[in-house]
């Protein structure tokens, strides 16, 4: 069973999480009106065969969204952190 580390709850089966897809794309600002920018945000994917940074939500748990680095060719799991914890949140 693919095991993910929820920073709040600890190691859990991936079945406790809901997948959120590619986490490397920053969401355009709400005011952004350029359809091309929104199109690339939604419809283009690096889809690498190797390290992939992705979102998961611990829905059968603390409901936190987390960011996981996982290799899509071997399923080796790297660093994991709460999605909210990057950048400005102290």
């Amino acid at each position: 069973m693919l095991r993910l580390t929820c920073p709040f709850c600890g190691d859990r089966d991936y079945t406790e999480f809901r997948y959120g897809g590619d986490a490397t794309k920053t969401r355009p600002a709400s005011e952004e009106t350029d359809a091309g920018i929104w199109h690339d945000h939604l419809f283009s994917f690096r889809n690498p065969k190797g390290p992939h940074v992705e979102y998961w939500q611990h829905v059968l748990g603390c409901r936190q969204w987390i960011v996981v680095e996982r290799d899509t060719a071997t399923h080796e799991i790297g660093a994991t952190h709460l999605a909210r914890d990057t950048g400005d949140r102290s």
Partner: protein
Amino acid sequence: MQRYSAFALLKHALSGNERWARAWRSGAPKPGYDVIIIGGGGHGLATAYYLAKNHGVRRIAVLERGSIGSGNVGRNTTIIRSNYMIGANTAFFEFSLKLWEGLSHDLNFNCMVSHRGQLVLGHGPGQMDVHARRGNTMRLNGIDAELLDRDEVMKLAPYLDYSKEARFPIHGGLLQPRAGTARHDAVAWGYARAADDYGVDIIENCEVKGIVREGGRAVAVETSRGRIDAPKIGIAVAGHSSHVAAMAGLEIPVESHVLQAFVSEAIKPLVHHVISFGAELFYLSQSDKGGLVFGGHIDGFNTYTQRGQLARAQTVAECAVSLMPMLSRLRLLRSWGGIQDMTPDGSPFICKTPVAGLYLNGGWCYQGFKATPASGWTFAHTIANDGEHELNRAYSLDRFLQGKELDEFGIGNWTYKQ
């Protein structure tokens, strides 16, 4: 090529079967071709065959990194059908089913195309209405469809769970009598042999590692067996579509996901149709070798490993036993996985790309096997004429920018929810 027939079998049997010829030649790649097809799966081989047969292209190479048929064509649950209702999908998949009907003859290779019928179950009035819209659209486009009520479903498939305890009671179903299954391996080998007969070079153990561009045009590929030039290059690598498209600087709306499939031990005839559950994605049919072949939803996260999680095998088994209680004691023989090229709207790409001379066939999600004949036919047309055929015009890379998604099941633009 040597004609296959009952007579041929007898003739060769008398001479100890020693004079059967190779089904397809195996040789080193030539320096250049008119067209290179990357990917020796069903779509790549079919494209090469129709390029030669329909468009008279002579110098064609199919480059396959492993052995032909080792990709999804060799690992799918073999369901063929044309019960599509959204835009271009209806005509495209019906055209494919028509090609399936004559395929064994056309290729002189028995693909065991079995028109045994596919029954999609409905578990509530709302779902039956959605089935009705699909069935009505099929009939209006000359495609066979029948809406069955609960009693008719019970006659067709008496072994389903009609008991009071069933968590999702069966209200009825949509039957496509002409739908069914085909022998997956035979499709790859049949197209390979027929293409080889037209002079197509099928080069195995030849992995494409780079696409050479000059002046915005694709002119050659770098492979594990050296550089090979061609003015036209067609990508047909299914699960590796992003990986190969990136070699030409293209980022495409595809994410790679593993879909698992399962086969039970071989038993005497038990299930005579393709059965699709309505409450959760689950589909099952009995192969001619006697094993029940079934599957469910993708595992649900990006991966290129051709193997799945145990939890998914368990949820698929839950569907199997809940839908057909008799399967409880039948044993799983083998489980495997294949990498599917999932697109946001669940529909494929058969189109030109921003790079001149480079063409893309991919994004097949769950449904590429049934599309193999029509995909080969239209991709060959697109390459030969440097322009899409009427049947595949809608399968363009820019459809999302246009808002022309073809969302067959109304799931919305999520690759991992298709």
